[in-house]
């Protein structure tokens, strides 16, 4: 369809539409300053007008813009003109960018406008020359999306990697070595204890080897595989010992991630099974609410509620059970907080795979005489396995990336995500922060892509398009009782924690003076409210490009075939998988000086939000587009509508619900985000979550609880509105995992 369209336009054109952007590029170049002296965007500083810059190079931008203008108005053959426009636009863009990068001048409005216009010129060129088999809109969109991904995802991450190995301008591995060798990173053998940790770890390796050998014997493996099994088992054993006895950020993060992922996955499985097979309807209905919690709660809020409940003077530990202990600070507390935060994500993922189970299969198995255990082992379990693995790996990634909980509950241990922050914000060692960031990034990416590769290959789908008949047998009574008690415990805990935040926002001084007061809300109104409004504004402004850009990328990836399509897919996945602290360091390193100076402005916060939340919109868009027959769009194109018109008149109205869903989720996620933006706030650009974290740390707990309550309630309202709009019972469908 695209080819037909391109051919039909090629014959008609006497001049190219590229003259408009080419003219804009020229005017912007002449009328506005090309660079700027400092952070202020809208300066008209005459010293940065092109003729004051004293450089011939920068005039190439104008020269190529004029060339493009002339070419677009000449009656040339369409393909030839297309090639000419591509070259003129591309070279103009290149000369502008190379001048900025070469001189390190921050871009000015003139540069911004003329370079954007030149991208559009290049888009026209690529389309008319037939190099991109579509119209100028699609071609320009592809260029813009690729440039955005390069500038705001790949470039900052590249800077992180570069900072790790370039110290003071020269290449060295010293920083990598000294960081990885420091006791903050790994502290395996501890000279201050009487036992030898390495020996203990080796003991675990021996146990692993013995277990591996026993298993291999029972399977009667040949020698080679026998040895391999033993080796792997020994390594796993040593690794477990390393996590338990090792200190430093690496083993601690690994240990917490393992605990959290295991417990969260199991709990998620419990919820998913209950949702499908319980006898109690109200349990099924209330499960929907579980999927809501992580989206509406800033990630560290539960951490400080945990101190109220389980600290040395905690209501549960001290007043109920008379335990006076600080055990909550450390691995126990962080794990608990993360389990509460990430179990819903695991639940959403597992529910997806539980939903794909077919009752007919289980009935068939039972008809063939299988008992419940055989049925579970041979039918249900293999079908569940990929979903469980998926949930496990996702929670591992979330746990690695989590920043707020370790910061509040970390106790005497370091964690990879917090070390990135303290290396940068406290020790001010950007190189060290970059090393930590690179380690964290590579661990997460390995898991992320291994998971995609693995699950992408194994297809366990039992649904063939037709809804299966029949319903699942209920759970066995004992089993159901067990699962229900897990569910009850979880619900009790979560309700208690949320209630304690709400209650804490109304008392004078938590635990000391429990008289009710509205003082915290008055404080919040004077100090927190302007910040809250500012945050809402930035979140709202960034949600629009996040949703539309995500939608556009979905459209390009699903409906268009072009060179670099997998690059666009990869880039947007990368921004999804990268831990927030790493992206935060990346942004501050990449955008603090030089041509892309953006720090200390709302713009950089908004950009961070856009690229962080865009992937959710992409997935919504991809899922939506898959349900729409391309022949609709073909009909529109056949009637000579351009693809921008088709997108606007056909696809947007049809996909308005996922689009609004993406919009609202981008907004809510921006309101509750912390790990990336904590690096980017500046005077006058303070965000609600960062302020809230500061209050928690400064001991303004009542006020923090008030802000937390208001955040949670307002986000809940927004999400409920969305659910009303889409008539979905829970938010997870558009949200996190599924």
């Amino acid at each position: 369809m695209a080819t037909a369209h391109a051919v039909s336009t090629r014959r008609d054109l006497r001049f190219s539409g590229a003259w408009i952007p080419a003219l804009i590029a020229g005017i912007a170049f002449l009328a506005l300053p090309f660079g700027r002296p400092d952070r202020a965007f809208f300066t008209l500083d005459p010293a940065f007008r092109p003729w004051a810059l004293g450089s011939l190079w920068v005039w190439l931008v104008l020269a190529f813009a004029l060339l493009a203008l002339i070419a677009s108005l000449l009656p040339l053959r369409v393909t030839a003109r297309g090639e000419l426009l591509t070259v003129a636009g591309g070279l103009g863009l290149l000369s502008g960018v190379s001048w900025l990068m070469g001189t390190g001048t921050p871009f000015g409005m003139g540069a911004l406008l003329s370079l954007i216009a030149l991208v559009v010129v290049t888009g026209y060129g690529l389309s008319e020359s037939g190099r991109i088999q579509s119209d100028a809109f699609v071609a320009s969109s592809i260029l813009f999306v690729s440039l955005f991904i390069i500038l705001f995802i790949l470039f900052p991450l590249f800077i992180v990697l570069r900072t790790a190995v370039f110290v003071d301008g020269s290449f060295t591995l010293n920083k990598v070595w000294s960081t990885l060798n420091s006791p903050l990173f790994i502290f395996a053998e501890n000279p201050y204890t009487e036992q030898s940790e390495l020996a203990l770890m080796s003991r675990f390796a021996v146990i692993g080897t013995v277990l591996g050998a026993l298993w291999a014997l029972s399977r009667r493996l040949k020698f080679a595989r026998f040895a391999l099994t033993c080796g792997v088992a020994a390594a796993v054993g040593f690794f477990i010992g390393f996590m338990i006895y090792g200190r430093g950020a690496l083993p601690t993060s690994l240990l917490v991630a393992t605990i959290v992922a295991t417990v969260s996955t199991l709990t998620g499985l419990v919820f998913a099974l209950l949702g499908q097979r319980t006898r109690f309807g109200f349990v099924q209905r209330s499960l929907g609410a579980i999927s809501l919690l992580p989206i509406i709660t800033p990630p560290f809020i539960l951490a400080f509620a945990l101190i109220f409940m389980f600290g040395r003077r905690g209501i549960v530990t001290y007043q109920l059970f008379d335990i006076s202990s600080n055990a909550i600070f450390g691995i126990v507390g962080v794990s608990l907080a993360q389990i509460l935060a990430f179990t819903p994500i695991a639940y959403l993922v597992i529910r997806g795979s539980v939903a794909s189970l077919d009752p007919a299969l289980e009935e068939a198995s039972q008809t063939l005489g299988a008992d419940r255990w055989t049925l579970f082992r041979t039918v249900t379990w293999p079908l569940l396995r990929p979903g469980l693995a998926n949930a496990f790996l996702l929670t591992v990634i979330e746990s690695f990336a989590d920043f707020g909980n370790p910061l509040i509950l970390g106790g005497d241990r370091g964690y990879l995500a917090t070390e990135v922050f303290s290396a940068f914000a406290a020790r001010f060692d950007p190189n060290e922060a970059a090393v930590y960031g690179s380690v964290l990034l590579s661990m997460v990416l390995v898991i992320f892509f291994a998971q995609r590769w693995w699950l992408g290959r194994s297809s366990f789908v039992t649904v063939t398009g037709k809804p299966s008949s029949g319903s699942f047998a209920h759970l066995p009574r004992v089993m159901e009782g067990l699962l229900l008690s897990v569910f009850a415990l979880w619900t009790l805990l979560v309700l208690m924690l949320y209630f304690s935040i709400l209650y804490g926002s109304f008392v004078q001084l938590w635990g000391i003076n429990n008289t009710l007061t509205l003082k915290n809300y008055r404080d919040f109104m004077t100090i927190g409210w302007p910040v809250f409004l500012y945050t809402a504004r930035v979140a709202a402004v960034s949600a629009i490009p996040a949703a539309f850009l995500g939608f556009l990328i979905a459209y390009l990836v699903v409906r268009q075939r072009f060179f670099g399509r997998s690059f666009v897919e990869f880039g947007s996945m990368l921004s999804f998988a990268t831990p927030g602290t790493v992206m935060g360091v990346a942004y501050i390193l990449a955008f603090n000086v030089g041509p892309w100076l953006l720090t200390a402005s709302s713009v950089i916060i908004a950009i961070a939000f856009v690229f962080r939340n865009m992937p959710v919109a992409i997935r919504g868009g991809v899922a939506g587009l898959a349900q729409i027959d391309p022949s609709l769009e073909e009909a529109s194109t056949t009637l000579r509508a351009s693809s921008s018109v088709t997108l606007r008149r056909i696809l947007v109205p049809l996909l308005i619900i996922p689009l609004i869903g993406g919009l609202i989720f981008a907004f809510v996620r921006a309101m509750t985000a912390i790990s990336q933006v904590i690096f980017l706030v500046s005077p006058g650009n303070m965000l609600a979550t960062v302020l809230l974290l500061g209050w928690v740390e400064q001991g303004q707990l009542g006020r923090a609880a008030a802000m937390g309550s208001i955040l949670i309630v307002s986000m809940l309202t927004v999400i409920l509105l969305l659910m009303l709009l889409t008539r979905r019972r829970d938010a997870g469908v558009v949200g996190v995992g599924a």
Partner: protein
Amino acid sequence: MKRLIGFIFSAALLFTGSAFAQQVNLLCSPDLAWCEQIGPAFEEATGIDLEFVRLSSSESLARLRAEAANPTFDVWFGGTGDPHLVAFTEGITEFYKPTVWDDLLSGLKNAVGETYIPLYTGAIGFVVNEGILAEVGAPVPQCWEDLVDPVYKGLLAMPNPNTSGTSYTIIATLIQIFGEEQAFEMLAAIHQNVAQYTRSGGAVGLLAGRGDVGVAIQFMHDGVKYVRQGFPVINIAPCEGTGFEIGGISLIKGAPHPDDALAFIEWALTPEAQAIAAQRGESFQVQSNANTPVPPESPDLSSINLIDYDFATFGSPEVRDRIVAKWTNEVFPVPRR
């Protein structure tokens, strides 16, 4: 396409506004409550807008170092003196002699010379929750050497020197009293007793107040705040003597709003401005202007055994970075039994 461009611009326009206004960007390191009171009072007095970010003083130093090529802040207000001195030595801040220079306490001026402007002073001490200590039968600590006793295991809190200037002052104090080797032995023993290192120096007293720990090591004037808020804590001055800070105010070199910055510094040193700290800011340091009344709640510095704190040595970047790194690598990572 036009829509996309139009959108980019409308989004960009939303973010403009404050670029040309009169404004001071303040990096504020004292107690949050004080920081929050400064802006409105300054705006009322001068009509100049004030935006602040609150960071602990070591974090502030890190932030200023990171931004040295392109500062966003105009003035660094408060926080312990050593990082101010480091910033001055590294050329991140510059000295400015305010018109009220002659009114400032001469002891403070002589100690720091013409590097940064003294803003207030206060001494390190213990903020103790007697109830928690009584629970385990531990005595109220009176001296630094008491803190190494394993009876305080899990009952101590102090700030982290990586983020907190208070914590650096604590470590520097120990080094000056006991010598570096013994000080680090004591820090290692204290580490075995510490339940939590906080990011901010003012926040540890809260842990003691709430009963999460029994003893918080921090500035005594911060302890006064928790006493006044109704927490069951008392202030102890260590028997071997204790270190003190000369909190500072510094002009950032290359400040984006230099004129407004100077106006702010002049205002901040007036008795009226300094009195805000105790009246509305829950901060009970002794203020640097001799005409500012000393709050009645403030710890009486004349009755405390103060050491002869060597600001020049411990405010030098090399010494500071070395000591913090040594603590970070040799004390902090050691697991507690």
